[in-house]
């Protein structure tokens, strides 16, 4: 099933929330790249090219009730949930006040109890069965929650993906499996990761699969909202495969021109969801270039302040090394 274009149902406020999130994420991401190149931070993993899908998905969820299991490229998703640029910057600089892990994990390893974001880790796909377990817990407690989990297409080959989907299917759990298919897993193209279509795997687990153009915010929003309604109605999980493209190298440690061409990247850059959204907004009379300039200036200002703040913030102290290994007062 292909998701329908549903721009008609969008209010101006929704469009703005989604578009502004995309721009905030994009400008943050570009700045993180600059900071890495200038030696201020060690490492960055980019989400450029995937922001539209992430922001639209977040807008279709309920941030008060739902349970979130994002992955390391989900900056736009996190911003939409309410993580500030200050917080992202603390994480990038690996500072103690980083709400994700206090600088204990790599950047992009999100976790924020305030925002109902459950802490993830480096091994890909491990968050998928967590989302399933959390959805099961929500059902047991009779809560209105839907668990949303995102991951890459390469990661959908891990046993954790298949085991999580299977359980969720058997128990018809309220889970949205959101695969961001950006066509590469580091250097390995989709062609050598999966022989079929990822979306079709849903049928094998007894639930619905939907493939959407991840650069089309309306289509993503619609797919996620429909999946959420289905989950709330007790009709079980949905696998959404959002077709996107990883514009940047895998990470700042990767040389992507060893395995793909500049032309290929440029072709996809031309289909960028951010510009498409802006064009739509202007066309619909919801946005102007003056507003665009104001937003960009506001982002630049917020980033500048966030960098100053993060640079000044202290690292975790060595005395905290043994903290949080087991419960305080528990036995070692």
């Amino acid at each position: 099933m292909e998701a329908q274009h549903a721009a008609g149902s969008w209010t101006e406020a929704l469009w703005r929330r989604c578009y502004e999130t995309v721009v905030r994420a994009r400008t943050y991401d570009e700045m993180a790249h600059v900071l890495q190149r200038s030696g201020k931070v060690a490492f960055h993993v980019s989400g450029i090219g995937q922001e539209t899908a992430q922001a639209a998905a977040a807008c279709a969820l309920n941030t008060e009730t739902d349970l979130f299991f994002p992955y390391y490229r989900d900056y736009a998703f996190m911003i939409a949930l309410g993580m500030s640029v200050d917080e992202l910057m603390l994480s990038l600089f690996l500072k103690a006040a980083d709400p994700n892990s206090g600088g204990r994990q790599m950047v992009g390893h999100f976790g924020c109890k305030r925002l109902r974001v459950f802490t993830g880790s480096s091994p890909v796909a491990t968050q998928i069965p967590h989302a399933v377990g959390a959805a099961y817990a929500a059902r047991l407690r009779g809560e209105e929650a839907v668990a949303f989990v995102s991951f890459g297409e390469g990661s959908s080959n891990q046993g954790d993906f298949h085991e999580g989907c299977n359980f969720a299917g058997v128990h018809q759990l309220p889970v949205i499996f959101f695969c961001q298919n950006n066509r590469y897993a580091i250097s390995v193209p989709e062609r050598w990761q999966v022989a079929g279509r990822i979306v079709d795997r849903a049928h094998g687990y007894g639930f619905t699969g939907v493939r959407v153009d991840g650069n089309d915010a309306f289509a993503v929003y619609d797919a996620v909202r429909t999946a959420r309604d289905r989950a709330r109605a007790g009709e079980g999980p949905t696998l959404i495969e959002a077709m996107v493209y990883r514009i940047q190298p895998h990470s700042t440690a990767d040389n992507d021109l060893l395995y793909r061409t500049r032309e290929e990247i440029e072709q996809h850059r031309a289909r960028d969801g951010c510009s498409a959204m802006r064009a739509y907004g202007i066309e619909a009379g919801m946005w102007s270039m003056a507003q665009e300039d104001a937003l960009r200036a506001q982002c630049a200002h917020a980033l500048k302040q966030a960098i100053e703040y993060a640079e000044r913030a202290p690292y975790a102290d060595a005395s905290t090394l043994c903290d949080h290994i087991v419960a305080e007062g528990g036995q070692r």
Partner: protein
Amino acid sequence: MTNMTMIEAIRDAMRCELERDPTVMVFGEDVGHVGGVFRATEGLQKQFGATRVFDTPLAESGIGGLAVGLGVQGFRPVAEIQFIGFIFETMDQICSQAARMRYRSGGRYSAPIVFRTPFGGGVKAPELHGDSLEGLMVQTPGMKVVIPSNPYDAKGLLISAIRDDDPVFYMEHLKLYRSFRAEVPDEPYTVPIGVAGVVREGSDVTLITYGAMVHTAVQAADELQRTRGASVEVIDLRTVMPLDIETLVTSVKKTHRAIVVQEAQRTAGVAAEVIAQVTEEAILHLEAPIMRITAPDTVMAFGQIEEEWLPSVARIVAGLVHVLDF
């Protein structure tokens, strides 16, 4: 002879064995076309073709199981796990399948696999990338565990591992990949598994270690020589399973004192095992308890405080002084 970094020596070992033995295969995530995220397998697919050197999907349990299947069919897989922490995804295939194949089949089948994986602290690799998990492997009957500290040993040990009829867990310290070069013969040669190396002879105390800590240990030995004229014998285990207990006992019978240094967490690790075995064999020759210098029993430290977590020259010197003055 060629002057090589350790990663070049590792690549050269695979190249030699791919050339010599048509049953050798090399695979893992990103190892084919780009030659691995650290470039350990760079150029091998080009030279030997994509049937023998290839990228797998992102699924470690699949990689481990594939290796077992090839192994029982008479192939010699060299499977790369991209970072040490991702062995957890394939723990069953490595520890309970590959390692026990010979036992379970009464010797009818074996899994002559080399699992290669980068690990180790000192380069600010985060949790699950820099952990030292050799202790898990050492407690896996049927598995040999090899950890080279220099380019020469790296090539010779990897060739031994590939030719070994049983699975070998071969750990490549991130800090040593490109930190220095050494002369390495161009032709294939072996460094035997299960034999430790005496890096430096000494008479007052024995310092036992492995991996990148060999270099930290040598610095500590130099410092002690300078500051109090003590002569430290430094031993590089090279293989942590099986342990070369003979070399250790011979040394301790000469020096009567010893310390063991490991990057891994303290409890129930290689250091603890070395101390137990040396004590069993040579307790009456000891003038002091054998000390352990290790990381604390915490998760691998985050980069900003990694230097405090890892054994340092100062901590090793303090340990040596303690056993010398005991």
